[in-house]
């Protein structure tokens, strides 16, 4: 069977006048693309093995390498696109389900790019965040229905005391958290970078469903522990190690689909953390088999609250699907303290391509409709909304908050900060950047000291930009922006889209 119908996706251009045959590319490629011929003192590259991760290009000391997208792999056809042909050839070869990694790259409308943010002019003053205090601290958790106060009389005179007992909250120094990525789907060095950066910056990272490695116990104050359908690594100590508990129902990249960590990735460390035998497949069922209704979900939420002594917020993560608004309403009524919603473009370590690219709805529409629904039902304060699924910049963060989210989760953006080049080959376990792999040759490539520093820089940069934008709009606290859709205008959107987003079109005034 020598006939291969698929062509190489990338073209590796090696400038021979610059190549010094130092073989860095040979040593760095986990896909064995480059090969050194000692007789000819030349390096040759095999285009077909290249996944386009740009590791060799980034490390080449002379800039001799260029990885280019190969044009005209097939005769151009508007209907039968390159991707369709590639996938059909692949499936005709293998007969399997096509897997992929990261979020969908299909050209669906990105509503973030069709929404514009407001600024102050004349009638209300803008604020300079470098000179005046700007509050972006956020609390995630259930808020009380009303507040009761007590007047106290002491030797120093009269004072006011809050009588209402508040619910447990997560305190975020910036409305950005790292989303759930398990140890197993990413390397321990990557987990360590996320945990370290979160604890340094005063925000949270999420364990995913991979359990909590003992090296990460020291970050427990900044850890959200996840309970997913496989229940990997879950016991009462695990629950109590976290600052909050999140029940994972679904993930934006693969709504309705479970997970599968292949046995070869279940090393002794991962088997300890997940509490499963070494080398066995870790299969997370598609549903939680004890949750077939909102009432069942309520039982689990209260069981977890009981197990953690009512000391931590317990939330639920769902993917954005067609009926997300009533689903979110049910989740809040079931007693969740926060609802995390993961949109269509959310990332993954492995998912069937057809699911990733065709199932779910964009996060922008989901936040808007959930926020709207919860407000109408008068239960918006009972839970925080966390938006996830391709938050690409501080502008996306601020738009998400203005649409009604309390905070956002970033996953892909965090990985990119650590070096990810979005080659979408996470499921192969051969991540050349040392992120989505357990291969000891590759995991070394992410020095957690460097990873932490880069993540901290990203959080800092985005936080500064958020403050700038808030100041420009004359707002001095992020709380005042939550659900404040008057600060958003749509551009190039239909009447129906504007209605769902609950915003006016650009040019429309009061």
């Amino acid at each position: 069977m020598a006939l291969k119908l698929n062509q190489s996706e990338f073209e590796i251009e090696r400038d021979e006048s610059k190549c010094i045959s130092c073989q860095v590319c040979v040593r760095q490629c986990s896909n064995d693309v480059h090969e050194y011929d000692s007789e000819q003192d030349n390096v040759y590259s095999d285009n077909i093995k290249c996944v386009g991760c740009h590791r060799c290009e980034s490390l080449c000391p002379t800039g001799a390498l260029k990885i280019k997208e190969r044009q005209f792999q097939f005769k151009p056809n508007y209907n039968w696109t390159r991707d369709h042909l590639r996938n059909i050839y692949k499936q005709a070869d293998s007969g399997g389900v096509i897997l992929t990694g990261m979020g969908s790259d299909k050209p669906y409308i990105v509503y973030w790019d069709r929404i514009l943010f407001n600024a102050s002019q004349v009638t209300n003053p803008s604020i300079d965040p470098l000179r005046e205090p700007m509050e972006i601290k956020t609390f995630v958790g259930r808020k009380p229905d009303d507040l009761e106060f007590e007047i106290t009389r002491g030797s120093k005179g009269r004072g006011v005391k809050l009588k209402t007992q508040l619910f447990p909250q997560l305190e975020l120094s910036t409305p950005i958290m790292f989303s759930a990525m398990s140890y197993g789907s990413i390397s321990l060095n990557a987990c360590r970078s996320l945990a370290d950066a979160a604890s340094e910056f005063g925000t949270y990272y999420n364990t995913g469903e991979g359990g909590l490695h003992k090296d990460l116990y020291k970050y427990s104050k900044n850890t959200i522990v996840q309970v997913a359908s496989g229940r990997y690594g879950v016991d009462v100590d695990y629950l109590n190690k976290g600052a909050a508990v999140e029940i994972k129902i679904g993930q934006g990249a693969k709504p309705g689909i479970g997970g599968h960590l292949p046995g070869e990735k279940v090393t002794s460390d991962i088997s300890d953390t997940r509490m499963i035998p070494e080398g066995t497949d870790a299969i997370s069922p598609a549903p939680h088999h004890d949750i077939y209704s909102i009432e069942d979900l309520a039982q689990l939420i209260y069981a977890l609250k009981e197990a953690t002594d009512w000391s931590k917020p317990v939330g639920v993560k769902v993917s954005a699907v067609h009926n997300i608004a009533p689903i979110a309403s049910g989740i809040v009524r079931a007693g969740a303290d926060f609802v995390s919603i993961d949109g269509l473009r959310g990332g993954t370590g492995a998912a069937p391509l057809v699911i990733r690219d065709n199932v779910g709805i964009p996060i922008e529409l989901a936040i808007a409709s959930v926020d709207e629904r919860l407000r109408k039902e008068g239960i918006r304060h009972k839970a925080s909304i966390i938006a996830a699924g391709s938050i690409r910049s501080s502008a996306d963060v601020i738009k998400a908050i203005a649409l009604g989210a309390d905070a956002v989760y970033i996953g892909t953006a965090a990985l990119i900060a650590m070096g990810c080049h979005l080659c979408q080959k996470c499921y192969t376990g051969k991540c050349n950047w040392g992120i989505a792999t357990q291969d000891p040759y590759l995991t070394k490539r992410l020095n957690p000291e460097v990873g932490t520093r880069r993540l901290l820089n990203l959080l800092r940069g985005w936080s500064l930009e958020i403050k700038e934008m808030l100041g420009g709009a004359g707002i001095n606290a992020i709380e005042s922006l939550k659900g404040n859709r008057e600060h958003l205008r749509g551009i190039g959107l239909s009447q129906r889209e504007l209605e769902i987003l609950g915003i006016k079109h650009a040019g429309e005034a009061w």
Partner: protein
Amino acid sequence: MKKIYIQEEYCIGCRLCEIYCQVKHSKSKKIIKAFKEEKSDILSRVLVEEIGYNSFAIQCRHCADAPCVEACISGAMQKNENTGVVICDENKCVGCWSCIMVCPYGVIKRNTSSRKVASKCDLCVDEDIPECVKNCPNEALKFIEEDKEKENQVKITNEIRK
């Protein structure tokens, strides 16, 4: 004194340290020219040792009580009293290789390209940070004070014991 230390758990075996060391010690100091035209003349003074996925870069440790200085028959190998850097004066070196025989780390190389001389790490004395450290893509190489490294080692050992 400041020395180069390797965190071997983050050495990725790319050997860029070797490449930049060669460039630094070439005549032209230009990477493409150095490799295309002077390749046979330049030796890397840092070595990457590898077994399986374990790898680390090693170069002269600039020992406090350097055996190579003791063994040198011509007085070429000298330890600078102020900086602590051990340097081979290539004009005095006669190529007897005594230093190579006594070096406990095996980091002195024979340079036989023009004159027979011993070639070893000079800590890039004319630079603030040695080239190998500057160009390590994973920051596995560190240029820090000896005392600080000892503190680090104690910390690591304590953590492992826990």
